[in-house]
């Protein structure tokens, strides 16, 4: 598979603070990647480093096969970071024409890209008259101008109203369906889950998980149990080889599975050991619980 971006132990320190710590991952062509992490976890810093606007402290990264310099490679990349940045006194079309000059491409695609993001009728309005949603859409149009190998979006729906969020997601989905590789940084799990195929989860600059979104949820699930003799229930559960951690919160015992096990087997196992359940529920963690679990595991 063709690689687009490779990060190798990339690190960024701001004085005593380490914003990104030994981050490594690879981005392959044709997938939609999400970088997921809470605010301040180092997502934007990571993107800033590979986009040549933040100086790395140590480590390596290279675009494509690593032959071109970063700024040459960036001409084949479309990226928007945080706020849409354009010249307020220029119109949408003049701003995009400037981007074409920087990227060294013909400007005949401007109207086509404005059409994709639904701004064609505002092409001669000055940038400063745009709403945030329109600015964000113009930024996407600008990132698409060169038909990029990869589209990088950093919190593209931040600060938008529900309608704006919906529009942006629709645009991203349409671009992804045409086979463009996308790297999307977000603190919104829901967004990543809806749009991405692969995910890299970072917290305090460290990678916690990287892999497919659907595999992230590949645990065997857990049981929620209730019985009159809780102490006995817990001790019996702990002794079972397929059960990992057992916790008790306010009379509800949670047993996390390490091997697959169905509810029927569990019920008969406990009954044989002299326990009659008053409540039995087998569940799988939602992606959200999984995410919270992942992002919390190093905090205590």
């Amino acid at each position, binding site marked *: 598979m063709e690689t687009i971006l490779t990060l190798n132990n990339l690190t960024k320190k701001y004085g005593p603070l380490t914003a990104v710590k030994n981050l490594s991952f690879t981005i392959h062509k044709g997938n939609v990647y999400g970088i997921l992490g809470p605010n301040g976890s180092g997502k934007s810093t990571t993107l800033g480093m590979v986009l040549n606007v933040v100086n790395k402290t140590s480590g390596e990264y290279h675009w494509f096969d690593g032959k071109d310099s970063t*700024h040459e490679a960036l*001409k084949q990349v479309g990226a928007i970071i945080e706020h849409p940045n354009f010249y307020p*006194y220029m119109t949408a079309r003049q701003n995009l024409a*400037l981007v074409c000059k920087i990227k060294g491409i013909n400007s005949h695609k401007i109207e086509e890209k404005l059409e994709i993001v639904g701004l064609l009728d505002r092409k001669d309005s000055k940038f400063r008259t745009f709403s945030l949603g329109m600015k964000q859409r113009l930024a996407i149009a600008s990132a698409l101008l060169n038909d990029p190998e990869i589209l990088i979006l950093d919190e593209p729906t931040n600060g938008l109203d529900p309608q704006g969020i919906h529009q942006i997601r629709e645009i991203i989905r349409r671009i992804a369906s045409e086979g463009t590789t996308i790297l999307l940084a977000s603190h919104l799990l829901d967004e990543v889950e809806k749009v991405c195929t692969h995910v890299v989860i970072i917290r305090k600059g460290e990678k916690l998980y990287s892999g497919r979104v659907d595999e992230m949820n590949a645990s065997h699930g857990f049981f929620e149990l209730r019985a009159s003799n809780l102490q006995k229930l817990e001790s019996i559960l702990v002794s079972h080889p397929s059960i990992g951690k057992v916790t008790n919160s306010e009379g509800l015992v949670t047993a996390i599975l390490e091997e697959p096990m169905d509810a029927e087997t569990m019920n008969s196992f406990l009954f044989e050991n002299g326990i009659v359940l008053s409540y039995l529920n087998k569940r799988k963690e939602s992606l959200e619980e999984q995410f919270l679990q992942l992002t919390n595991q190093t905090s205590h």
Partner: protein
Amino acid sequence: MFRLLDIELHKLKYSRSAKILTITYFILITFIALIASIEFDLGQIHFRLADQGIFNFPFIWHFNSYIAALLKLFLAIVIVSMMSNEYSNRTLKQNLIDGLSKKEFVLSKFLTVVLFSIISTLFLIVVSLILGYSFSDYTEFSIVFSDMEYLLGYFIKLLGFFSFCMFIGILIKRSAFALGFLFIWWVLENIVNGILTWRIFRDSDIADNIVQFFPLASMSNLVVEPFSRLNFIQTAASQIGSELDKDYGVHWYQLLIVLVWTFLFVFLSYKLLKIRDL
């Protein structure tokens, strides 16, 4: 190279304030012609400035370079804001993401500075030729095209000054503060000059020898004031018994000092951009 210039001119040509300031600057240079119409009528004495030889070749080259250089502040505002606006609009970041390297960014700004200096110089030549042929007492070819080194001085002076503006625009990041800094720098140079001349090194040339290396002082030394060269001033001076022997020339080492500063400003702009996180 033309790509970089094209990028920068694209940014400037849609900016209304940049356009107004640039046009004002060039119109004001043509207003040097208005000096010709200054007349005094003091009873018996009828005095017309144009008749005092200020537009005589080759003196006009010196006179006009000096006057035109005073107007450089208008372009300085354009240059400072074209640097600092990239920070305040955060467009510098976007330019880099779009694939401009930091080196290309500084180069595109510097090429614009060079272009402004070249156009100013050419414009000044045209204005001076027109004025000279209208008012000069001598229009022989060899006289008209002598003493042209003042134009070189003028060009280098603008180049150095605009590079300085470019550097403080990047350094300070806010156009108003950057222009304030430029003013404070000028005041500081004058204070240091004053202290050196009147306190530390009285009655010697040492102060001048040090001060000539200061950036603004070195630029202003390139084209010194031409007024005391005028006949009527010389006459007046000798009448009150003081001798004016001033060096009005443009010297190679003065050009070199300013060129070194120009190089330093461009180089430091690049370094600053390189080490900064955006």
